[in-house]
């Protein structure tokens, strides 16, 4: 959803071709390493936006190299962009690979859960150190957008580290409780009741 709306936003700025859209999108989001969008996704998204009447092909640029189709936003596209910009974003991420490792280390005994926590903590601190270094090297007068994104990463890592401390403090309690079990639902046709 976000890429689709981002393309609308960039086309609301001015008409652009696919390559330009991809490069600008990635620059805003802190580079390819942060959010890599494949060219194919840009072109299929553009095709869908065109089909929905939200963008239209405006011209073909043949000035250099292979020809590039230039797209522009339509009034319907602009309306959709405005409604997206002014609605809140739900962020609810509970898929956590570390959590899965912890639960399975508890369940299988194949690794010490305390060690799993310490390894994760070390990894998070190394990441935090790397981001802190980048954050310090960034120029606040020119690269504020990048700094804000780095700050977000720092704060999330801080939260993850605090969460690890909490888990470690309660590890003995967790060990004493059974792992969550699936709720068994009867399958197939209900059995006939015998009178």
């Amino acid at each position, binding site marked *: 959803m976000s890429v689709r709306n981002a393309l609308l936003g960039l086309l609301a700025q001015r008409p652009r071709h696919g390559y330009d859209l991809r490069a600008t999108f990635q620059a805003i989001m802190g580079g390819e390493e942060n959010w890599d969008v494949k060219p194919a996704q840009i072109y299929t998204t553009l095709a869908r936006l065109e089909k929905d009447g939200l963008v239209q092909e405006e011209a073909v640029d043949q000035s250099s190299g292979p020809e590039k189709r230039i797209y522009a936003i339509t009034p319907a596209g602009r309306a959709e962009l405005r409604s997206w910009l002014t609605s809140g974003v739900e962020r609810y991420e509970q898929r956590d690979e570390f959590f899965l490792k912890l639960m399975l280390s508890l369940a299988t005994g194949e690794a010490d859960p305390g060690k799993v926590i310490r390894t994760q903590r070390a990894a998070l*601190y*190394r990441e*935090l*150190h790397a981001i*802190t270094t980048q954050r*310090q090297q960034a120029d606040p007068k020119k690269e504020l957008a990048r700094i804000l994104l780095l700050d977000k990463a720092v704060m999330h*890592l801080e939260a993850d580290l*605090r969460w690890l401390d909490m888990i470690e403090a309660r590890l003995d309690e967790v060990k004493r409780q059974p792992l969550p079990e699936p709720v068994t639902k009867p399958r197939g046709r209900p059995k006939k009741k015998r009178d």
Partner: protein
Amino acid sequence: MPLVQTEYLTKVYGKGETAVIALDHVNLTVNPGEFVAVMGPSGCGKSTLLHLIGGLDRPTEGRVLLEGRDLSRLDDTQLTELRRRHIGFVFQFYNLIPVLDAVENAALPLILDGVKPGAARARATDWLKKMGLGDRLANRPDQLSGGQQQRVAIARALVADPALLLADEPTGNLDTRAGDEIAGLLRKIADEWGRTVLMVTHDPRIAAYADRIVFLKDGKVVDETRLSGSSTEEAKRVMAKMEAI
């Protein structure tokens, strides 16, 4: 030679049944120019560790070597001299003298050590400028923000040119932004001015500025994480550890 080395460093407060083991046989090595953070829950012994390394307190067992010198062999006068010339201290609440201005506060350790006021002021001014306080030299502590006061305290800690800077929760009384500035300065003190920094903190954000984190719990080192350095250095360290086993 390591700058700081502790061997089986132990501190017990009280006696008999009420005895509390604040530090339990801690072996820690800090190399010259390294920036090390010590973390752990409150009461884990991290401040005790810093105080023992800084010669502010004496261990129950074990010893501290500072640049190879055994602190336990020094008498109180020698220890005071060592603290004044070889170690700089930074605390959570800055501990500046309210009636003195920034230069006078920063110059204090030199004045107490008998350096002539003119020379002492010049060196204090130099460090204050390095701390970004060139335009605050004549301000008293109450005319400075928390972050600025802490920077005066760091200038004071460095004015006698110590090899080791000990910082006990240096950002504990500051907001996030000022805390980041202080942590960044500590980083710079190690990187640009070659000092060794040992910092106690409970804040992950601040600890992440260091080269290495040592985790303490119940007076013992429970974990250690290297945050920077090349992978070859890391491999060497692991190899050395493995050989030691």
